[in-house]
């Protein structure tokens, strides 16, 4: 099962309502995934020379201020930290690799769940409604968000096994489906130096994309190569700094629906997750084709077709 949802606001006037509009979308998908939930929200881009990390810890009482102070002292950099339940958002002008190395050595109980200019990733076990409340997401403002509700099939119900999975700077992935060649692909990627923290199949898809992007492959090409290299069932929603992309396996095994109005674009596993959005009844609604990359807000996604006329099916206005 699992449910995935994505919302991209075209109308700036709606930015202050992003978290409120997204909330019923995620909660409607509870019946598809009651085990854990997570979101990636793109907001508050950092200044040039700064980087934002999404960090997670097993405890909601973790002393994040101490961590930020130690990091600032060790690397002679500025740090600001915002604590949200088991997660924290760290903004620093420290060098990215140095910060990651310091965290790996000095904060072994802290997981880096996302990094980039604007992305913030929050994910936890529990019902989507509870997870949403824990991270105070209802009041979140921004342009776009993707989310996931998980019914675990391939691996354990843990925070680390929850989606979204980061795949690079400002990039992350949510997955509905199951991959059948994840064990072999994981071993291949390990040999290439990629590290893994779970036995989760979706983490392998994320790691695959991360590795491809590190090789200088464009996101569009990486997704198209994924069609050959990933075996199994999948609908992916990939969050990017400027929007999101959607890809389904070549036989379109897993549900997906897209809807668009002048104000927003939404994707979901089922339409009922979109039904609460303003103007949904008048939206153009269609099912994305298999093995086709769809993307919105793709100005940084070189080569990606955006709202490509041939991807848009005729019919309902």
């Amino acid at each position, binding site marked *: 099962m699992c449910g995935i949802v994505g919302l991209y606001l075209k109308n700036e006037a709606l930015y202050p309502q992003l978290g409120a509009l997204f909330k019923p979308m995620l909660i409607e998908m509870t019946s598809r995934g009651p085990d854990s939930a997570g979101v990636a929200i793109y907001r508050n881009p950092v200044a040039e020379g700064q980087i934002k990390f999404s960090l997670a810890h097993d405890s909601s009482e973790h002393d994040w201020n101490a961590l930020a102070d130690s990091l600032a002292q060790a690397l002679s950099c500025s740090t600001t930290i915002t604590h949200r339940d088991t997660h924290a958002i760290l903004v620093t002008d420290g060098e990215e690799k140095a910060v990651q190395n310091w965290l790996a050595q000095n904060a072994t109980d802290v997981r880096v769940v996302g990094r980039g200019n604007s992305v913030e990733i929050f994910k936890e076990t529990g019902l989507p409604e509870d997870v949403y409340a824990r991270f105070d997401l209802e009041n979140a403002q921004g342009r776009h968000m993707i989310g996931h509700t998980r019914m675990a099939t391939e691996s354990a119900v843990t925070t680390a096994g929850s989606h979204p999975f980061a795949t690079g700077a400002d990039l992350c992935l949510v997955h509905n489906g199951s991959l059948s060649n994840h064990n072999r692909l994981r071993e291949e990627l390990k040999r290439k130096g990629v590290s893994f923290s779970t036995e989760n199949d979706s983490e392998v898809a994320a790691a695959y994309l991360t590795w491809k992007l590190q090789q200088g492959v464009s996101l569009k090409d990486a997704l198209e190569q994924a069609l050959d290299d990933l075996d199994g069932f999948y609908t992916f929603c990939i969050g990017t700094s400027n929007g999101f992309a959607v890809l389904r396996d070549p*036989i*379109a095994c897993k*549900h997906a*629906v897209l809807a668009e109005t002048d104000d927003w674009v939404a994707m979901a596993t*089922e*339409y*009922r*997750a*979109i*039904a*609460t959005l303003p103007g*949904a*009844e008048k939206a153009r*609604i*269609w*099912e994305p*084709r*298999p093995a086709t990359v769809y993307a919105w807000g793709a100005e940084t996604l070189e080569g990606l077709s955006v709202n490509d006329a041939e991807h848009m*099916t*005729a*019919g*309902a206005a």
Partner: protein
Amino acid sequence: MKQLDLKAEGLRKINSTLQNAVPDSDGKEWAVTNPMGQHAIACGLNTELSVTIEGNAGFYCAGMNQKADVTIKGHAGVGVAENMMSGMVRVTGNASQSAGATGHGGLLVIEGDASSRCGISMKGIDIVVGGSVGHMSGFMAQVGHMVICGDAGEALGDSIYEAILYVAGDVESLGADCIEKEMTEEHQKTLTELLARAGMDQDVKRFRRYGSARKLYNFNVDHAGEY
């Protein structure tokens, strides 16, 4: 027309009301408001009601329909009119996968596009799609007609039995044992009637007919030694 608010009354209540309604005494015309993409709306109707779903429906809308005339004003999710027995189901927007799956009778009209596996294992239903259909449509289609006014995706009519497929646009590829067949006057007449019933204004001459080569589902005694 009687109104049923799905959001206020809940799915079970409105389905129960529709399933138990007697057209002559309770009224023939019904409308379901606030469908909100919920699943299994107006399933299992078995009287001559006329039901309008005022918005987008979720999965399996109007499934198992008998006699009733159901119109979905918007998009229909997976498996619309699945296993329909008789009556008519109309979708004014697009439809997701497996529209009309296993349908035994009646007419399903999709004014927009249908996604993959449209008419999978159809057993006597007639389906008319105003737009295009996705891959594997008409898979193992046994009896009935599917009319596609637009294009058909990969593997149309794979492993088809005796259903008849009419396509006006391009066919990306034909599935196993599905071939193009001659369009006779009799077929043009059938097609004209189907388009008229569906309310589609189309030139019959644009359509090609596809059906079974009958090499796959017939046991061929010459191959007996291979088993």
